[in-house]
Each structure stands twice: as structure tokens, then as C-alpha cells.
């Protein structure tokens, strides 16, 4: 009897060959001001890309080119770009349904993201996931997840898997998982279970609370107890927690980078209460009766993109002309992504029955015959 061709102990179980061509390492600088110009300018680029992408997304939604629930990320750009900017490319990232920003910050192309919402074969999930379920395996984006807080035990799971690979299989390397959640997810039982497990088992996962003050139409003071001291909760689980002003990306980096390095090094979880704000309604179908226009304007006055842009101008990293050119370039790229999504093929009817089972034996269904789907465009 021959042995099973078990995973060779030299290689990590998850094969992401395509990612090799991408920059792999997080910057080493301790503070944002020490970062090379290229990185700082890239942040601005990425944040503006998300902003522009979301504006176009709303337009396409209003034209009924995008269906379902669609949650816009504008206002929160500094969170995804700043925190993802602190980690390595192969550190797993998982988030909820407000996921376009994370997808783009992780390196998903605007085409793949837009086409997914258009329900086209060139979308990151070939049109099977939609706005709330963005996955990008080569970029270690382990999903947008539609069920509030379902991603939090999974975040612990990716940290667990990284640790297991290192300690049991002798492969892999020290990683840290970034697990994003909205303030509404604070109230779910599974987040408490996840924190308990992460702390109990020394799992390197950082729970990044994107605290935009609202869970749909319910303000945080109406949905979670002791909302002004959320790090205390984490402390209850023996998890280190910090608060970060999430409207200033330089500040996000300065506070988050040492935390991410420490979690990776010590294999411990952390919790970050990142104060941010969403400019748009909860989803595309939200009349926003629960907040005032003045409140929204107050935050828009502290816009994170404007702030970074001003900082970079002060530092001499970019000037008006450069900023204008950047915006033009981004606008063109995003417009092209809409055009390419619009022109992309809709899935064949056959695709309905593909990618259901990895080993589609017969008789799995009384009515369906399953097969493997066309190759995913990202793989």
C-alpha cells in the first residue's frame, strides 16, 4: 500500500502562485513620516481609487446595472488602506459585506470588483457572490461575508491555520490576520466566542472595529453597552485594545503598525476601535432619517483623503498638478472598469451548476448535475 500523497511538508497548504509577482513585505518604518514617498503617494492613490470606484458604483446601481444589497465604503478609506498598508501581502484579510474598499486596497483590480457587482464572468467570483462577497485568493482576501460577525471566528481561524502550519507542519511563517468588523458586529455572540478563542489559544488576529457609529439606522449608543470604552471589553478577554482616529491615515499607520508587528511577533490577538464615518447611507436603499446632514458634513470637513493630500503637499510629495493628474488617471481607470464590466459576458446558464462541489460525484442531487466551472479569472 502506498501512502496518501499528503501535502508535502515543504509547502504551505494554500497555493497562491500568482501572488509571487506582487510586493510581499510590509514597510519597516515605525512612523508614517519616515515612509518613502512612493508608499505615501500610493496610499493617496488607493484611497482616491476607492472613493472614485464607489462613486461609480452608486451611479451604476442607480442605473440598475448592479443589484442586491450594496454598501458603500466612502468616508472609511483610510481604515482599509492604512491598516492593510501595515502588513505583508500574504497576511490574510477578512471582512464583512462593506468590502469593496478592502478588495481594492488588497490589490483586486477595479475590473474584477466592478464586474462582480455587474454579475459578469470576469468578476472575482464569476458573478456568484456579488457586492457583499468579494474573494481574491492571490491577494489573500478571504472574503467579504454577508452575515454580520460571521467573519470574526473565521479571522481567528486564519490565524490558527498560520500558526498550525508553522508549528505542526513546519511550513509557512509568522503571520497576522486582519479581521474587520462593523460596530453592529460587536453585539453578536460569535464575536465574543472568537475573542475568547483567540486569546485562549494565542492567535495572531487583529479585530479591527470600523466604528462608524451606526449599525444600519441604530446609533452605537443605542446598540452596544458601554460604547465609549470598547477596549475595556477586549481587556476582559486579555486582549490588548487601542483606539485610533481613523480619519487620518498617517495616524492609523503610526498606531497600527507597531500593534501589527507585535501581534505577529508575540502571536497574540489585538482589538482596535478605529473611529471612522460612512458618508453614504447604510446601503443603497437607506433614506438616512436617523442622522442629520450637519453631522455628515462635519465629518466631510475632516475628510481623510483631503487630509492626506494636504499632508503630502506640505511634505512636498505631491503638488496640485500631480494630484490633478492622479485623479484623472484614477477616473479613467474606474470608468474603464465600468465599461469593461458592462461589456463582459454574463455567465452561461451552465455556470449555475458549477463550483458547488469540489468532488462532484453522481447522485448528489435529485435534479442537478454538477461540474467544475470555468477557471476563475483571478486564479
Amino acid at each position, binding site marked *: 500500500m*502506498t501512502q496518501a500523497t499528503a501535502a508535502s511538508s515543504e509547502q504551505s497548504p494554500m497555493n497562491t502562485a500568482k501572488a509571487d509577482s506582487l510586493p510581499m513585505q510590509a514597510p519597516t518604518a515605525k512612523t508614517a513620516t519616515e515612509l518613502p514617498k512612493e508608499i505615501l503617494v500610493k496610499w493617496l492613490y488607493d484611497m482616491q481609487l476607492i472613493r472614485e470606484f464607489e462613486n461609480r458604483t452608486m451611479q451604476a446601481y442607480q442605473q440598475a446595472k448592479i443589484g442586491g444589497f450594496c454598501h458603500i465604503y466612502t468616508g472609511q478609506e483610510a481604515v482599509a488602506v492604512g491598516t492593510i498598508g501595515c502588513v505583508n501581502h500574504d497576511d490574510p484579510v477578512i471582512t464583512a459585506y462593506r468590502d469593496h474598499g478592502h478588495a481594492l486596497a488588497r490589490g483586486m483590480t477595479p475590473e474584477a470588483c466592478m464586474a462582480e457587482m455587474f454579475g459578469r464572468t470576469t468578476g472575482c467570483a464569476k458573478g456568484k457572490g456579488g457586492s457583499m462577497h468579494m474573494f481574491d485568493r492571490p491577494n489573500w482576501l478571504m472574503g467579504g461575508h454577508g452575515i454580520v460577525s460571521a467573519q470574526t471566528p473565521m479571522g481567528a481561524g486564519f490565524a490558527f491555520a498560520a500558526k498550525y502550519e508553522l508549528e505542526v507542519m513546519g511550513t509557512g511563517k509568522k503571520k497576522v490576520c486582519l479581521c474587520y468588523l462593523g460596530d453592529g458586529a460587536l453585539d453578536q*455572540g460569535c464575536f465574543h466566542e472568537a475573542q475568547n478563542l483567540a486569546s485562549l489559544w494565542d492567535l495572531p488576529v487583529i479585530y479591527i472595529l470600523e466604528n462608524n457609529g451606526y449599525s444600519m439606522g441604530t446609533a452605537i449608543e443605542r446598540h452596544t453597552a458601554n460604547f465609549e470604552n470598547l477596549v475595556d471589553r477586549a481587556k476582559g478577554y486579555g486582549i490588548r485594545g487601542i483606539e485610533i482616529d481613523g480619519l487620518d491615515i498617517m495616524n492609523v499607520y503610526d498606531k497600527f503598525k507597531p500593534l501589527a508587528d507585535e501581534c505577529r511577533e508575540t502571536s497574540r490577538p489585538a482589538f482596535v476601535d478605529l473611529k471612522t464615518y460612512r458618508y453614504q447611507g447604510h446601503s443603497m436603499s437607506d433614506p438616512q432619517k436617523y442622522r442629520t446632514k450637519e453631522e455628515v458634513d462635519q465629518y466631510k470637513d475632516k475628510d481623510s483623503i483631503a487630509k492626506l493630500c494636504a499632508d503630502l503637499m506640505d511634505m512636498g510629495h505631491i503638488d496640485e498638478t500631480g494630484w490633478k493628474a492622479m485623479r484623472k488617471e484614477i477616473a479613467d481607470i474606474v470608468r474603464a472598469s465600468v465599461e469593461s464590466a458592462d461589456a463582459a459576458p454574463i455567465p452561461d446558464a451552465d455556470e449555475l451548476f458549477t*463550483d458547488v462541489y469540489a468532488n462532484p460525484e453522481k447522485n448528489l442531487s435529485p435534479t442537478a448535475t454538477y461540474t467544475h466551472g470555468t477557471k476563475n479569472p483571478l486564479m
Partner: protein
Amino acid sequence: MTMIETDIHPAIDNPALPMFLPEDQMPSRQGDRIIQFREALREAMSEEMRKDKRVFLLGEEVAQYNGAYKVSQGMLDEFGPKRIIDTPISENGFAGMAIAAAMTGLRPIVEFMSWSFSFVAADPILNNAPKMLYMSGGQFGCPIVFRGNDGAGGQLASTHSWCVEALYANVPGLKMAIPSNPYDAKGLLKTAINDPDPVFFMESERMLGDKAHVPEEEYYIPFGRARLAREGDAVTLVSFGRPVHFCLEAAETLAAEGIEVDVLDMRTIRPLDIESIIERVKVTNKVLVVDQSWPFASIASEVVTQICERCFDWLDSAPARLNTADVPTPYAKGLEYDYLPNPERIVGAVRKLINA
């Protein structure tokens, strides 16, 4: 046993499926290596864990306590605490965690002390595991096994006596195995661990002490192949898991009256070996499905429907089903017995079918 790379989805890294032997080359079910059902399960897990470091077991009391039902006895000693992992009572948390680990290519085995406790983990096990491949457009698979006790019989009353198969088998993307004896339990669990899809594996606390010969040689049992446990000509009894024994007992009683029935042990529910059912229906022309879940939208309902769709003309009378009584599971011993599709009820149902 050769492991082969068959037509497995590219989302699965390093897939290895056992090459299944033809039925007549499988090691014998007869012999004197008599072990318990729980030991057969343990052997299956241990053998696969020895071969493949991606495989690990987690659940409540699986390590230091040696398993709430002693299925994992001794495994901590052999594999250590990094691979035999005691969890807190946190099904939602650890099931979700294990699913994420499976997405990255590890092969977790999650033990639910009882499937009755899986409901607090319903979201991850139903929303994430079986849909991951589809929702990610074929980027991430989820090769994971969930296993544990299922069904009534130990006077545990309604919260602890769940039969979850009808609820869960409804979901596309998962597979479901429900063995009735140690030989099948071992062979099916070994297959489940190697299968690249999420497998829901149902055991029964009532059967863990059952003893039978389990061969020394390694073997794997393919999914979707029923076993004809007894051959007759009057009626085909279709069942799976513990009620197979009720059927065999009823068959003995009926044989004393000169009525010979088939007992077909499905072994897996999804996939369902409908061809074997049809083959036997063509012989007996009468069929009774015996199922220990509730009747409404049950596995029996599904099997009966498929029979009607596929071999209606071969039936001499309406296909029948026998389920647990359509009530919450009672505690009192006698009531619990009456609630189950017990041998007496089966005998009654067969007589009714024959006289129909």
C-alpha cells in the same frame, strides 16, 4: 491503497482521493478482529492523521478527557495537543475557525459532542462551509469533516435527541454519511477525511459500543454506494444509520412468518445511491423507507419522491415511509421507544404494505 488525483476542483490544493476497490475486492466483513464502533472511528482518524499532517481533530473534551464518548481515546498521547485540540463550549466559534482553516488547505475534523449542539453553529456550518466554493467563484474550497452523535435512544429527551440529517441534507454543497456499523464507519470516515468537500458525518451514541470485525488492511468506502444488508423478495426496506438495525430485527420477525424483505443500508444520504434502490424495487415492487427523522420534509420524503420519479411503474403499491413520531422527543423509556421507527412499527408497516 493507491491515492489518486481524480477530477478534483482546482481550488483544492494537493488533493488525494483514495482509489476505491471494486466491491468484490474489498477486505472481508467477516473475521475475528472484533472492535467497537468508536474504535473504528478512532482508527480511521488516526490512520489519516499519521499520513497527513494537515488533518487535526478539535472539539469539546476530545483531548485530555479522551472524548466525551471515548471516540478519541489515546489520540492526545499519540498526536499531542496541537493536533488533538480541546475546545471551550463554543460551537459557533470553533466551527467558524475550523472552516477558515479548511479554506487555507488544512483538513480539520470537528467533533460535535452531539449534533444537537450544532445549531448554535448553524451559521458557519450551513452558510460558510457548503457555500464557500460557489460564493468565491471557485477560489476557495472547504475540505472539512463535522462529526458527532445524532438521533434519539438514550432517554435524553428533546434538546439532546436531534436527528439533523433532514434539516442539513437540504443544503447543496455538503455531503452526508450515516454509517450503521463499525466496518462502514471506518471506511466512510477515511473517505470523508480525504474528500475535498464538507462532509457531515452522523454517528449514534447508541451504536458506539457495537462490535464487529474490522479488517486490518486499509480500505476506503466510496460515497454513494448502498449495501444490501439482507436480501428478500417481498418488500425493500431502505434505511441508514441506527434504524438499519431496527430493519434487520424486523426482517428476522417477518422471516419467521415466511416474509423475506430486503434491507438496503444507504450509508450516505448525499450522494444517495438511488440506482441500488431502483434495482431492488424492480425485484420486490414494494418499498418502505425507514428514517429516524421527523416525517415532514424528511430524508424518507426525498427518497420516496425519487422512487416515484424514477421507478413509479415498477411499484405495486404506493411507496411507504416510516419516521419517528411527529412530536418532540420524549424522555420516558417506553414513550421514547414508541417514538422511534422501532422493529415492531416496521413489522406493522411491512404487513400493511403487503396487504395493500
